């Protein structure tokens, strides 16, 4: 598998380390159901074949965290984004909707 790092270009997966699901969002400590939310955040996963948004780290490269959308049934990589950019957009949305 090769991942097209937005900074470094395409590299073999030996340069990256996989972290996991990128669709979960860290809950708010002050939520009344914080414990249940954190349990879901830390442990529960959809894990269904097909496109999967997931975090990878360019460990042997530029140290960028990436959001990779990858079909986990075929290993086809559909998109690669900087996690920071995705997170900033997520935060902006959260603010916008707040």
């Amino acid at each position, binding site marked *: 598998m090769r991942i097209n790092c937005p900074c470094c270009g395409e590299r*073999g997966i030996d340069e990256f*380390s996989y972290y996991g699901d990128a669709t979960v969002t860290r809950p708010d400590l002050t939520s009344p159901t914080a414990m249940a939310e954190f349990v879901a955040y830390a442990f529960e996963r*959809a894990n*269904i074949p097909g496109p999967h948004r997931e975090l990878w780290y360019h460990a042997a490269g530029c140290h960028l965290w990436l959001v990779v959308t990858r079909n*986990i049934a075929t290993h086809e990589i559909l998109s690669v984004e900087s996690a920071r950019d995705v997170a900033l957009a997520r935060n902006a949305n959260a603010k916008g909707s707040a």
Partner: protein
Amino acid sequence: MPVGDYSIFSVMKEALRGHTGWGPAWRDAEPKPAYDIVIIGGGGHGLATAYYLAKEYKAARIAVVEKGWIGGGNVGRNTTIVRSNYMLPGNIPFYELSMKLWEGLEQDINYNAMVSQRGVLNLYHSDGQRDAFARRGNSMRLHGVDCELLDADAVRKMVPFLDFENARFPVHGGLLQRRGGTVRHDAVAWGYARAADRHGVDIIQNCEVTAFRFENDHVVGIETSRGYIGAGKVGISVAGNSSRVAAMAGMKLPIESHVLQAFVTESIKPFIDGVVTFGAGHFYISQSDKGGLVFGGDLDGYNSYAQRGNMPVVEDVCEGGMALMPRIGRVRLLRSWGRHHGYVDGRQPVHRSHPHQGSLFQWRVVLRRLQGDASGGHVFRASDCTR
């Protein structure tokens, strides 16, 4: 009427008439409208579960439904090791029960699964690792499980061909479970299937589950590619597909499906006796009764349903192999394969009840461990029918 019991006598008898008297090892059953218990997944755990259930509850109507052919999942894709040398309290009794079942398995199911207790030796390479293994070994002893902590000399005597001279991480010793070993993995599935079948279990192949049917929060049956099948209880035993099947029942599991590659070499004359695991790299190895070196190492490390891995892990495992046993350099890797299995932190089987009220619906997840197949079936049987 096909030949019944397997034995050297029946084999000799059949040899004289060209083996024409053997019948199917198990019936290729057609689905009936309803069963008391339906097990989804015809792998090691599912078949063992059906067998132990059928053996104990003779009147129960039981079926195993399998989307492809039985034994095609993890039970047919692992590296054949059986052991109970785990550390954490919950695991040892589970796998030790399995070990005990393995030990009497062949007579119990009348099938030679070639359980071979040639020992599992986990090497350690530092004082810290030694202490961790001592802790594990003591834990095993407290559970009544055999194990020995060997020092470097004892290891050298046992496996003199390891790299003791030029190692980057020298071998300091090992934890040995003599009762650990290997089993012919396919035969586990076939043996349980045949034994379950002889107890009246319907094994329904090429039957894919597409949905669950619930009434009042109780499961009443499953929709399949071969029609609706009513069920008093349903067990899920589908390894890496657990999330997918559980999702049909509206459940989310603490699991990702990861791929683990395994490897076998060309057949060579006896080369290594028991199972050896490298404590400073991702490599473990044994030799099959056919002569192939069977080895594996680390997960590929990403979520996957593809049942195949990539090159970095192949290389990583072979690097571990060469570091530990530099005499395997000219032995050729013949075949690699991947299996996907559920992965939880700690990588252990998960037995859980459905969160819906009443817990009338059971599911279980079978992970990578062949070791747990026998006890998984047993434990599941217990949890299934004692409530």
